[in-house]
C-alpha cells in the first residue's frame, strides 16, 4: 500500500510542479472502439465474447422483468406491507412524521456541511447519454409492444438530444450535484401525479384488481410533502448557518442523528401512553434532584484546583453506584431510573478531570451533563411506557422499517462497545488486552447466525427472574455484540496508524491518558479508518437479512414468505426476491458511493 501511495504522491508532485499531463486529442467513436475494443485479435475475441454474455444476460433479465407472466402486482400491491408490515392505517401519519424528521435532518445537514459537489455540463451530458443507452437497450431487448417501444424511443431521443446539447453548448457550466439529485427526485415524485402507474389496493385483506390511473392519494401526497420538507429544511439550514457557530450547529445535528432512531421508534412510532400525573409526581422531581445535586457536584469536581480528592470522590461514587445496583439483587427496591441516573452521574464524575479548565469550559461541561440527563430520563420514561399502537404480534414494526431499525440500532450500540474493545486490545494493560483479544477473536471466528440463534433461544435463560427481552431486542443485542468485534478490528487499524510522536507530544503538553486518547488519538484514528468503517456499515446493513432465519418479520421474510405466500400471488417469489435485492442494492450502493465522496472531503491519503 505504501508503495502505491508513494507513487500517487509522485504523480501529485508532478502535477503541482506545473507539468500538465499530455493533452489527449479528442477522438471519435471509431478510434475509441479500435483502442478499447479491438486493439488486438485477442481483444477482439474478448469483445465478441463479452458482448455475447452481456446480450444473453440482459435479454434474459429484461425478458424476465417485463415478461407477460410475471407477477409484479405482488410487489406493487404489498408495498406498504413491505415497508411497515401491519402498521395500522389510522395511525399511519406517524410513519410519515418519522420519515419527515429524518429527511428534515438530511436537508439541514446538507446545508450545514455545505454539500458542495458540482457537476459540469459535459458529465451531465454523459449521464444523459447513459440513460438513453439504457432505454435503447431496453426497447431492443425487452418483449414490449410496439406502442411502448415508440414511447421508449422518443424518451431515448429526448435524452440523446439533451446530452448532445449539454456537451456541445454548455460543457463548462457547473450545477450543484445536490440540485441534480433533488431534480431527479422531483421528477420521480411528480411522475406519481401524472404517469398512470395503476392503483393497486388491498382492502380488508382482499386484493383488489389493479385499476388504471395514477397511484393512490395516500402514496403520492405524503411523498410530495416529504420532498418539500427536505427542500425547505435545506433552505432553513442555509439561512441560519451563518448566524450560528458551526461547532454548535454541527454538534446539534450529530446529536440529532444519534437520537433519530430511538426517538422515531420509541416516541413517535410506538405512541407511548404517558400518565401525566405520574410524570409530574415522580419523574420530574427525580430529574430536578439529579440536575441540581449533580451539577453542584460536577462543578466542584471539575475545578482545576481540586486534585486527588476529586478522584477519590469520583471513585467512591462509582463504587456507590455499583453497590446500589447490586443491592437491587438483594431486594432493595428503588426505581430503576434512580439507579441509572446515579450510575450516569458517577461515570460523568470520573470524566470530570478530563474536562476541567476555565469557567466557560466548566459551564459547558455542566450544560452537557444537564442535556445528557434530560435525554436519558426522557427516553427512559418513554421506553418504559407501553405502546398504544395495535398491531398483530408484539412488535409495532416489520418489513423494511424493522430492518432499518435493527441496522441503525446495531450500529449505534456497537460503536461504543467496539471503541472500548479496540482501546482494550491496543492497551498496555495485559488483562484488558487479553479480555478484549479473546472476545474479538472468538466472536469473529463464529458465524453471525449462531450468535443470533444463541441470543434468540438461550438469552432469556441467562437473565434473572422477571427480566426478559423480546425477540427483536435480543436479536439487536446479539447482533450489536457481534458487529462490535468487527468494528473493534477496524478501529484498531486506525489506532495502530497513529505515530508515536503524537503520544509524546500530548505527553509533553501535560495531557492525561484519557485526554490524549479522546482528543488526540481517537479523532485521527477514526478519520484514518473511514473506508473500512463504511464497509462495516454496509456489511451490517446487508446482514440484517439474517433476521429472516431466526423468524423475525424483516424485509426479506416479508418478501419471501409473507407476500410469496399470499393466495393471490402464489409463485411470485422470484419477483419478491428481486425487489428485496433491488432495495438492498440501491441503499448499499449509494452508501459505498457516498463514502468515496466522504473520503475525498476528508482528504484521506493526501495529508
Amino acid at each position, binding site marked *: *500500500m505504501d*508503495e*502505491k501511495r508513494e*507513487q500517487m504522491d509522485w504523480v501529485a508532485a508532478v502535477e503541482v510542479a506545473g507539468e500538465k499531463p499530455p493533452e489527449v486529442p479528442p477522438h471519435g467513436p471509431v478510434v475509441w472502439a479500435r483502442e*478499447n*475494443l479491438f*486493439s488486438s485479435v485477442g*481483444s477482439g475475441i*474478448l*469483445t465478441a465474447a*463479452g*458482448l455475447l*454474455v*452481456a446480450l444473453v444476460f440482459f435479454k434474459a433479465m429484461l425478458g424476465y422483468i417485463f415478461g407477460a407472466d410475471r407477477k409484479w402486482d405482488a410487489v406493487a400491491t404489498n408495498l406498504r406491507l413491505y415497508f411497515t408490515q401491519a402498521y395500522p392505517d389510522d395511525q399511519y401519519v406517524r410513519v410519515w412524521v418519522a420519515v419527515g424528521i429524518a429527511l428534515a435532518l438530511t436537508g439541514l445537514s446538507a446545508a450545514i456541511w455545505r454539500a458542495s459537489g458540482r457537476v459540469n455540463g459535459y458529465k451531465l451530458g454523459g449521464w444523459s447519454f447513459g440513460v438513453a443507452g439504457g432505454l435503447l437497450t431496453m426497447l431492443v431487448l425487452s418483449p414490449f409492444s410496439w406502442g411502448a417501444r415508440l414511447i421508449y424511443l422518443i424518451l431515448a431521443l429526448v435524452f440523446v438530444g439533451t446530452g448532445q446539447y449539454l456537451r456541445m453548448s454548455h460543457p463548462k457550466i457547473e450545477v450543484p450535484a445536490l440540485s441534480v439529485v433533488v431534480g431527479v427526485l422531483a421528477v420521480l415524485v411528480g411522475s406519481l401525479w401524472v404517469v398512470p402507474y395503476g392503483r393497486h389496493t388491498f382492502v380488508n385483506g382482499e386484493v383488489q384488481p389493479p385499476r388504471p390511473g395514477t397511484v393512490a392519494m395516500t402514496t403520492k401526497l405524503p411523498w410530495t410533502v416529504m420532498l418539500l420538507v427536505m427542500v425547505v429544511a435545506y433552505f432553513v439550514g442555509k439561512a441560519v448557518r451563518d448566524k450560528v457557530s458551526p461547532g454548535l450547529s454541527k454538534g446539534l445535528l450529530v446529536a440529532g442523528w444519534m437520537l433519530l432512531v430511538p426517538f422515531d421508534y420509541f416516541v413517535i412510532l410506538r405512541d407511548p401512553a404517558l400518565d401525566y400525573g405520574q410524570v409530574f409526581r415522580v419523574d420530574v422531581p427525580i430529574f430536578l434532584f439529579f440536575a441540581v445535586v449533580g451539577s453542584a457536584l460536577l462543578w466542584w469536581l471539575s475545578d482545576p484546583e481540586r486534585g486527588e480528592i476529586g478522584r477519590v470522590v469520583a471513585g467512591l461514587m462509582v463504587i456507590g453506584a455499583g453497590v446500589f445496583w447490586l443491592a437491587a439483587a438483594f431486594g432493595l427496591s428503588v426505581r430503576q431510573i434512580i439507579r441509572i441516573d446515579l450510575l450516569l452521574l458517577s461515570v460523568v464524575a470520573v470524566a470530570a478531570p478530563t474536562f476541567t479548565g476555565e469557567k466557560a469550559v466548566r459551564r459547558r461541561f455542566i450544560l452537557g451533563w444537564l442535556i445528557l440527563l434530560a435525554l436519558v430520563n426522557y427516553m427512559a420514561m418513554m421506553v418504559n411506557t407501553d405502546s398504544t399502537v395495535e398491531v398483530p404480534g408484539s412488535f409495532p414494526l416489520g418489513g423494511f422499517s424493522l430492518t432499518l431499525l435493527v441496522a441503525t440500532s446495531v450500529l449505534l450500540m456497537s460503536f461504543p462497545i467496539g471503541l472500548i474493545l479496540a482501546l482494550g486490545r491496543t492497551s*498496555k*494493560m*495485559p*488483562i*484488558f488486552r*487479553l*479480555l478484549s483479544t479473546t472476545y474479538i477473536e*472468538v466472536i*469473529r*471466528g*463464529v*458465524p*453471525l*447466525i*449462531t450468535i443470533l*440463534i*444463541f441470543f434468540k*433461544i*438461550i438469552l432469556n*435463560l*441467562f*437473565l*434473572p427472574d422477571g427480566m426478559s427481552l423480546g425477540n427483536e431486542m435480543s436479536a439487536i443485542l446479539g447482533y450489536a455484540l457481534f458487529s462490535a468485534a468487527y468494528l473493534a478490528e477496524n478501529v484498531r487499524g486506525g489506532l495502530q496508524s497513529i505515530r508515536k510522536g503524537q503520544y509524546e507530544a500530548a505527553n509533553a503538553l501535560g495531557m492525561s491518558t484519557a485526554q490524549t486518547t479522546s482528543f488526540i488519538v481517537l479523532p485521527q484514528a477514526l478519520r484514518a479508518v473511514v473506508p473500512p468503517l463504511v464497509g462495516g456499515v*454496509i456489511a451490517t446493513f*446487508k*446482514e*440484517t*437479512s*439474517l433476521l*429472516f*432465519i431466526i423468524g423475525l418479520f424483516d424485509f*426479506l421474510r416479508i418478501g*419471501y414468505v409473507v407476500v410469496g405466500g399470499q393466495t393471490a400471488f402464489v409463485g411470485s*417469489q*422470484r419477483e419478491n*426476491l*428481486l425487489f*428485496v*435485492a433491488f432495495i*438492498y*442494492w440501491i441503499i*448499499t*450502493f449509494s452508501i*459505498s458511493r457516498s463514502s468515496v465522496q466522504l473520503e475525498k472531503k476528508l482528504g484521506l491519503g493526501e495529508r
Partner: protein
Amino acid sequence: MVVIKWISQVVVLILVVSGLLFFAAQAGSNLRAKNIETSWRFLSVKPGIQLGEGIDVNPSTGARALWVGMVNTIRVSAVGLILATILGTIIGVARLSKNWIVNKLSTTFIEIIRNVPLLVQILFWAVVIRTWSEVDFNLGPIHNWFMVSQKGIALPRIFPSTGFYQWMVVVLIGAYVGRRVYHQRETEREETGRETHALSTALGIVAVFAAVGLLIHPLFGFLGPIFTAIGDVLDAIPILVVQLLLSAAMVAAAGLWIKRFLDNLRTPAGLAKLTDDDIFRIIFAGFSALMGIVLVFVIWPGLSAWLIHSLRDFFHLLGDKFEWLRTGRPLDGERPRIVQTGRFPNFSTSGLVITKEFAALLFGVVLYTAAFIAEIVRAGILAVPKGQTEAAGALGLSRGLALRKVVLPQAMRVILPPMGNQYLNLVKNTSLAIAVGFADLVQVGQTLYNQTGRTLEVVAIWMGFYLGMSLLISVVVNFFNVRLRIVER
C-alpha cells in the same frame, strides 16, 4: 501508577468473571426450573432424524449426525473455496483489462453481487432451481452425462476404489522422488544458468510412478498388517501415559515460548528490564500450560482416551484398506442414471448428484465470495509498482514471464492476508445453508436441538467447530504468508 493500573485490571477481571458466573448460575437455575439439565447424552443415543444428504443420512447417534453435518459443511466450503478463487481471480484480472466491454462487465458483476445480501442471493438461486425442468427419462443437456433438473445437477463421478490406498503409496513415493529431483534441478539451474525443465521432469516422474503403480500396487498390501499392528500398540498404551505425554507437551510448549520471548528481549548488554506487562505474559504462558494439564486430568479426562482411540481406529481403518495382493482398480468411475423407484423418476445414487440445496448454497457463496476476491486480486495487482514490470521488461523477460516471476509474487504478498479473511467468511457463510435446508452443521444442529432440547450444547459445538475451522484456515494462510514474506537480512 502501576499499582492503580493493576488494581483496576484485577477489578475488571473479577467483574467479568463474576458476571459470567452469575449468568451461568442463573442459566443453571432457570434450566432446573424448566426441568432441563445440561447433558451430553444426546450425542450417544439415536436421534431419530433423517438428514437431507451426506455420508450417512440415517445417523445412529447424535454425534454421528453432527459429524455428517460437519462433513457437509467442509464439503461445500472446500468446493466453494476452489471455485470462488478461480472465478474471483478471473474477474479481478478482467477488471483490469484494457478491453472496455470486459472491464465493464466484470465491474457490473462485482457491483451487483457485492451489494446484495448473500442470503437473498441464496434464496434466489433456490427459487431459480425450482423453476428448472422436472426429472424425466430423457433429461438433458447431455443425457446420462450431464443432467440438470429441479432436483439438482447430475455428473459422472470418479471415486477411489478398492486398490486406491496401495496405489496412493506408490504415487506418494513418486511425489517424494519428484520433489527431490525438482530441487536438484532447480539448484543446478541456479548454479549453471542452463534451463533444466525442473517442473516438467518432476511431474513426469510422478506420472511414471502413477502408471507403474497401476500394475504393481497389489504388492503394497504388506503394509496392512503393519498398520493394524500400530493400531494394536496404540490401544495397549495406558491412558495415564497419554495424559502425561499431553501434559509434558504443554509444559514444553510453554517453556519454549517463554525461552523465545526472553531471547527476543535479550540485547548484547544483557537481558532488558522486564516490564510488568512482560512478566504477566510469562506468568500467563505458565498459567495456560497449567490450565491445559488441569483440563487433561480433571475437567475432561475422557479427552486422552478419545484421542488415542481415534488414532487407533484410524490405523485399524488403514489396515483394513490394505489387503495383501488385493487387485482392484485404484480409481473407478460411474455415470449418473435415472431410475424410477417411487412415483416419479429420480437420479440414481450412481454418479455425482449435486442436490438442489447444495447447488443453491454453492452458487450463492461462490459468486458472492468471488466478487470480493476479485476486488482483492485487483488491489493486489495494482499495488505492484509499475517500475517492476518495466524493469522486468528491461531485463528481457517476456510479458508472461514478467507476470509470473515478478508481478504475481509481489501481488500475492498483498493479496494473501485479505484472501484468508475471505476464505474464513466463506466457511462461516455456508451456515446460511439453513435457509435452503442443506444439511450442514447448523441445520443438523437445529434439527437435533428441536428434537432433544439441548440447545446450549449444540450451540457450544457449533462455536467450537467454527472456531476450529477459523484457526485451521488462519494457520494455513499464515504458513504461506511467512513463506512469501520478503527475506530481510
